[in-house]
């Protein structure tokens, strides 16, 4: 089971003079569900975006199955079909129906036929409970529905990994549950998931591993029981105390 998907070493990212990532070291194995938590500005989202090369890393190395993804000549587009991404703002294609959103990438990038692509798309839309809405346009859907379609769009590419960048942060509270439920189902399917989230309950119950990021580095990396019940780093304790006691 311990087949590494990502081996990240000394990953840094600067925006001008602003150092956002200051040397991240992390190995993610196949089938792991990793929640990435931490305060705003700690570099969680930037880290995730570097993994999909939506941001170009400044330094360090990201190996995907042993291959350096920042090397010259590395096929980024093919890589992105295997490492999907789900965004906070969904980023569904506004000019296409739900079905077309899940079909277009398969057709144009994976070169599947229309029939084949639609079959795959409907299978995954069924899985996220959105097949009924296949003819709707994104503007006709609620936030939770859009996010479920976005998940189906990534899955339709038969990806191995999905990166979730705060998938429920833009949703109305009553729609968070339906998205988390889909993600919980996925976590059992063997898909490798990296989830930047503020949903502590999800991190605690669903993930197999929790990473606490602070100031651009991985401050703590452990099983959810350890992070939530017995964190060793005082910064982790402080952060969790703040977010878990926000109601008081």
């Amino acid at each position, binding site marked *: 089971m311990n087949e590494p998907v990502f081996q990240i070493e000394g990953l840094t990212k600067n925006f001008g003079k602003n150092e956002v990532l200051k040397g991240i070291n992390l190995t993610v194995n196949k089938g792991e569900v990793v929640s990435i938590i931490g305060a705003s500005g700690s570099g969680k989202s930037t880290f995730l975006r570097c993994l999909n090369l939506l941001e170009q890393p400044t330094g360090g190395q990201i190996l995907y199955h042993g291959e350096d993804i920042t090397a010259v000549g590395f096929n980024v587009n093919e890589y992105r079909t295997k490492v999907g991404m789900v965004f906070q703002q969904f980023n569904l294609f506004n*000019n296409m129906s739900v079905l077309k959103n899940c079909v277009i990438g398969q057709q144009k990038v994976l070169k599947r036929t229309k029939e084949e692509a639609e079959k795959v798309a409907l299978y995954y839309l069924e899985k996220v409970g959105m097949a009924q809405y296949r003819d709707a346009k994104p503007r006709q859907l609620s936030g939770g529905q859009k996010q479920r379609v976005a998940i189906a769009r990534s899955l339709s590419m038969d990806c191995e990994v999905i990166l979730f960048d705060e998938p429920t942060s833009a949703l109305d509270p009553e729609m968070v549950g339906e998205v988390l439920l889909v993600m919980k189902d996925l976590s059992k399917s063997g898909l490798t998931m990296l989830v930047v989230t503020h949903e502590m309950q999800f991190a605690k119950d669903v993930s197999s591993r929790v990473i606490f990021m602070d100031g651009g580095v991985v401050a703590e990396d452990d099983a959810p029981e350890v992070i939530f019940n017995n964190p060793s780093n005082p910064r982790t304790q402080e952060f969790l105390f703040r977010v878990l006691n926000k109601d008081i």
Partner: protein
Amino acid sequence: MNFFNEVIKIIVDYHGMLLEGLGYTMLIALIGTVVGLLIGIIIGIVRTIPKSKSAFVRVIQKIVDVILTVYIEVFRGTPMMVQAMVIYWGYAFASGGNTLPLIPAGLFIVSINTGAYMAEIVRGGIISIDKGQFEGAQSVGMNHFQTMFHVVIPQAIRNILPSVSNEFVINIKDTSVLNVIGVMELFWQATKIQTMNYQIFQIYVIISVMYFIMTFTVTRILRLFEKLLDGKNTYVIHGSQSDPNAEIKITEEAHG
């Protein structure tokens, strides 16, 4: 009344010339606008190509960008009437006396002039598209051209259609400047009729009405086209909890 009789007489006597002028005006304006839009879209796609990692390709990108900027600024910054003279007589000068065929020359001038404006309009349209649309396309592995062609440009065109329609109207009117090189469009026909009967006021009232009918019709048609591009507001939900074959038609958009 005398005036109306004269107008009717001009229409009866010269309807062939007037209709020929109208035909050429519409032809040049339509093709000029469409080709101009295509030029604008191509420039828009080329200009948004991400900077290459290779230094050599970056230099080429820079050179292309400079050439495109010069093209846009020069053609936006000089009158189309002057461009027509420079291109038409420039060709005659360079070829030692040969002249360009008139209609293709007119099409070329209007297209290339419109292209310069359209490049800026398309750029505005591309900028108006949310960055998330680009990232969504990249996240499924689309390259720049696939992203632009399937996701960004279709949305950008919808957004810029009012400006495109505006350019079309301007072109219908501005083809009149092509009379300086003798293109047989509507204004040129009027100048010919005028030398035959000297009823200048009557002739130009007639062609103003003709210009207005053309521009008004075109704006209405493009409005309809905009609605068409927006697509239906309704969609069908396939299957319900009790019946998997149910089809529920949703006619109202969901809000919030």
